[in-house]
């Protein structure tokens, strides 16, 4: 039990990551458009800086500590729990958030009504506060509240674009998410009723007692099922992905980059914490949910890609590819081994870096083709917008799993994780990886070849100045993808060393 007075100053940094964007969201609503944007960018950079400092100060991956919120000690008060896994995830989330916002900033003028732009910044800040709160909190009900804040702000991010079918997309998104959060909340209430605790470590103690005595066995399994299904609906696991193509495909580029790369990952991270810290892997295996996730993950990996192949709109194609990639993450969780969890964590980061870049570069290519989104119209756009073309190629190659890029390391991780298993799981995973990679190659290389083919008739490029920030964001994202491919070993080792502390009921 940590006492507030015994904490070093740097240990309050996670509080900065949560409260800074949350507080400035309130201020931003009254700021004029241009100031609001600058302020948001500054706050997001500060959040990124705070998470870097936190990671540096924490240093030792096997170390973790709790931060009491308010003055009440552990079983009563609310608390944060900080370890290396949380720090790294927060670091990459805030970086991708910052870059997506910077990259999509110029398009906001075009897509969003003039006087609503500072409100858009409010939503970005709220989302980023909710993300870091979900990453750090150790209290189940707090994570529910922030899950809902994230849902509401992402619904606003989808609907913010004034044109197209965004309102319908947002309504469908809300309906699916309401279903998911109702199931999650019911599971949470059952769990509170069974254990009497809301802090994850104390729940784990009570659950362990219940499991070993065999008491309330059915109720526990129903609880695990409700929470897992609720969060997987919210994170768009196949077959709950029907809202994805509309939501990602029609909103403004910054929104689709943030939604596809971060929002679903936030829910998955909460689920990971529940599985590792609250329930414990043994109960999760006992409930059979791991096999269910495994099957749907495999189906999602393949059928998501099949749907992507059939798309004629480049942004909807990338959105369907997200469905397949969420399948990969759930595959790691469904395997349930330590290696599987590590692969899932690494893929969360890798996919975030890659998908945000793909959405940003696709929007640039579309602009260079006169605003038409169909694949055919993109012909030759790689020549018209060279850097954007390069970014798209890097993203596509990373998705396919080309060496030296993040996606390759991720796929190797999943294959290696499958090697620990007996025949059935092992061959299914390998087969799924092969089919999915083959489909990925098909639909991504098709676009890559297309954007470098000479168009039949000269397309008039719309003279839109894409701006320094857009270029900066793309270059940074390309660098990040190469880093994840080349320097991944350190990250993987850090995750491995940090996982025991992450899944322990109490720190130390």
């Amino acid at each position: 039990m940590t006492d507030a007075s015994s904490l070093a100053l740097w240990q309050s940094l996670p509080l900065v990551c949560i409260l800074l964007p949350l507080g400035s969201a309130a201020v931003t609503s009254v700021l004029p458009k241009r100031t609001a944007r600058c302020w948001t960018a500054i706050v997001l950079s500060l959040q990124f800086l705070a998470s870097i400092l936190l990671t540096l100060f924490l240093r030792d991956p096997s170390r973790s500590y709790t931060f009491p919120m308010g003055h009440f000690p552990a079983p009563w008060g609310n608390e944060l729990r900080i370890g290396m896994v949380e720090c790294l995830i927060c670091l990459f989330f805030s970086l991708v958030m910052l870059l997506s916002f910077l990259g999509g900033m110029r398009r906001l003028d075009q897509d969003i009504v003039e006087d609503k732009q500072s409100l858009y910044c409010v939503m970005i800040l709220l989302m980023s506060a909710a993300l870091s709160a979900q990453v750090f909190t150790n209290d189940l009900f707090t994570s529910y509240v922030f899950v809902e804040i994230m849902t509401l702000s992402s619904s606003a991010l989808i609907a913010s674009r004034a044109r197209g079918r965004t309102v319908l997309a947002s309504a469908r998104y809300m309906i699916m998410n309401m279903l998911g959060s109702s199931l999650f909340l019911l599971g949470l209430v059952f769990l509170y009723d069974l254990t009497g605790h809301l802090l994850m470590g104390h729940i784990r103690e009570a659950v362990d007692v219940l499991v070993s005595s065999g008491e309330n066995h059915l109720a526990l399994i129903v609880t695990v099922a409700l929470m897992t299904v609720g969060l997987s609906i919210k994170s768009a696991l196949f077959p709950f992905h029907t809202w994805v193509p509309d939501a990602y495909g029609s909103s403004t580029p910054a929104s689709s980059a943030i939604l596809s790369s971060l929002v679903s990952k936030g829910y998955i991270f909460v689920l990971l914490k529940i599985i590792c810290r609250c329930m414990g892997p043994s109960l999760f295996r006992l409930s059979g949910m791991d096999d269910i996730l495994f099957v749907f993950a495999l189906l999602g990996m393949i059928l998501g890609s099949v749907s992507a192949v059939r798309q004629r709109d480049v942004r909807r194609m990338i959105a369907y590819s997200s469905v397949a990639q969420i399948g990969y993450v759930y595959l790691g969780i469904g395997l349930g081994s330590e290696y599987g969890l590590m692969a899932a964590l690494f893929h969360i980061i890798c996919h975030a870096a890659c998908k945000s870049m793909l959405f940003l570069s696709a929007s640039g290519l579309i602009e260079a083709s006169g605003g038409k989104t169909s694949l055919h119209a993109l012909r030759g756009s790689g020549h018209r917008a060279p850097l954007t073309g390069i970014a798209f190629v890097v993203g596509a190659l990373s998705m396919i799993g080309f060496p030296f890029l993040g996606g390759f390391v991720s796929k190797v991780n999943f294959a290696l994780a499958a090697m620990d298993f007996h025949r059935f799981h092992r061959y299914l995973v390998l087969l799924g990886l092969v089919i999915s990679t083959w489909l990925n190659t098909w639909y991504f290389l098709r676009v890559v070849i297309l954007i470098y083919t000479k168009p039949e008739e000269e397309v008039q490029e719309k003279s839109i100045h894409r701006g320094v920030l857009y270029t900066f964001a793309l270059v940074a994202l390309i660098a990040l993808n190469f880093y994840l491919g080349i320097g991944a070993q350190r990250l993987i080792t850090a995750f491995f060393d940090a996982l025991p502390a992450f899944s322990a009921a109490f720190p130390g």
Partner: protein
Amino acid sequence: MTGVHFLEDLSAHLAEISAIILFGIGITLLMLSRNMIKKNIGFSMTDSAIYLFLAAKGYISGRKAPIVVDGIEQMAYYINPIPAGLVLTGIVVSVASSAVLLALTVRLYRQYHTLDIDEITSLAQKEEEV
């Protein structure tokens, strides 16, 4: 004999049982109804059902709210205030969610002049083809 036990169980857990039934009705409405307003009603029902469950589980009959006025400090005299706190927080969250869904419904109705989500979807598709 078992019939009597069953009835006793039923009456002892009346609130929980009705909460779960309400939850089922709400989820069905939310999923299957095509009318946006009915979907919203369904969502409100599911959340209220959960709060009913939480409030019923959190209350022990005969005990009081933990506000010390007559000097009694034994735990057995009071109930745990946390479930009530959770219900309050939850109500705020679900009010916000239904408000957002209602706002989206209003905008959809202004744009397409119908509340039927399937009809709206096909209208939006037609619009895109044109």
